[in-house]
């Protein structure tokens, strides 16, 4: 059991640096959101900002790749994403087809060029 939990100090750090910083924003959204009308202009803006922040995180992973993804050359990462987008559009917006095509492109490219 003690091996499963590890040391209690690490769990306290998880609560203070992991759980609370996330939950604060969720609960703030709960307080603000209760008074907001679904079709309101503020909500259109909020959705735009949330979408753009997610797009930024996506760009960040591609431009400054973490860990093992950094072993894939820049051009191959970008080409794989373009291949995925092309398959997505060609299949009338199938997410699965796009993801599979992008992955296959990256794996084939990495295998081909080493």
């Amino acid at each position, binding site marked *: 059991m003690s091996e*499963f*939990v*590890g*040391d209690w100090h*690490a*769990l306290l*750090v*998880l609560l*203070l*640096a*992991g*759980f609370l*910083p*996330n939950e604060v*924003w*969720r*609960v703030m*959204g*709960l307080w603000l*959101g*209760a008074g*907001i*009308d679904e079709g309101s202009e503020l*909500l*259109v*803006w*909020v*959705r*735009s*900002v*949330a*979408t*753009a*922040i*997610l*797009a*930024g*995180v*996506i*760009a*960040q*992973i591609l431009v*400054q790749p*973490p*860990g*093992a*993804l950094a*072993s894939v050359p820049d051009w191959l990462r970008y080409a794989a*994403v373009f291949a*995925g*987008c092309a398959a*997505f559009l060609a299949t009338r917006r199938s*997410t699965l087809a*796009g*993801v599979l095509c*992008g*992955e296959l492109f*990256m794996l084939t490219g*990495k*295998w081909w060029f080493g």
Partner: protein
Amino acid sequence: MALPALDSPTWQNPVRAFAWGMWSVTSTVLTLVLFATYLGIGALAHDSHFSLGWALASTGLVWAGPAQIILISTLGSGATLLQAAVAVTLSAIRLLPMVVSVLPSVRSPGTKRRHLILVTHFIAVTLWVECVRLLPQVPRGHRITFTHGLGCGLMSVCLVATGLGYGLAARLPQLFAAAILLLTPLAFLLSTARNCRQLSDVLALVLGLALFPLVSMLHTGVDILISGVSAGTIAYAVHWWRDRQ
């Protein structure tokens, strides 16, 4: 998978409504992506010398992939508690607009805030995207139960993946790990594109992608926020200007 019709009597049974929510995790490729992402998070936790219990607790309590990766890698590389907390907080601000945009479509006129606490905890990118897609097919009075089911379903998948990734960590080859990491941008990009309903959504996505690499050259430490808020605001301004025409 198709949900029952809006006026179907099966919705009246809360167990069935919860089960439909839970079962809905099988209807999206994002579940596969989450599974793969959390395999990676489990592996990362193992390699950073956290316990299996800690890794599982981080999935259940933090419940946000990017925040977990930031937390594990900052703490693992010896950052202080304060530094890790600030980095995680910055990555978590994006949850606020998600909660604000999901909750109005979940609640009914009589809903109290306390009924929404668990729904609020479950909200992260995937649940947000899936709620936009699925909630219009769910009768309004049963959306909280349905969302609880959806959240429990997604979290179960992620807990299994975290545990599995933790166990597989020692044997994960580099190519496989790179493929897992590439799944995240691909799937989130395409599923967001699929859910674009109006011009402002498309513009926010495209501008957000384009602005981040430019803003990141400034090395502000809050690049994601600067690029996201400006791209989102420009997209909204274009939408507002076109509505006025």
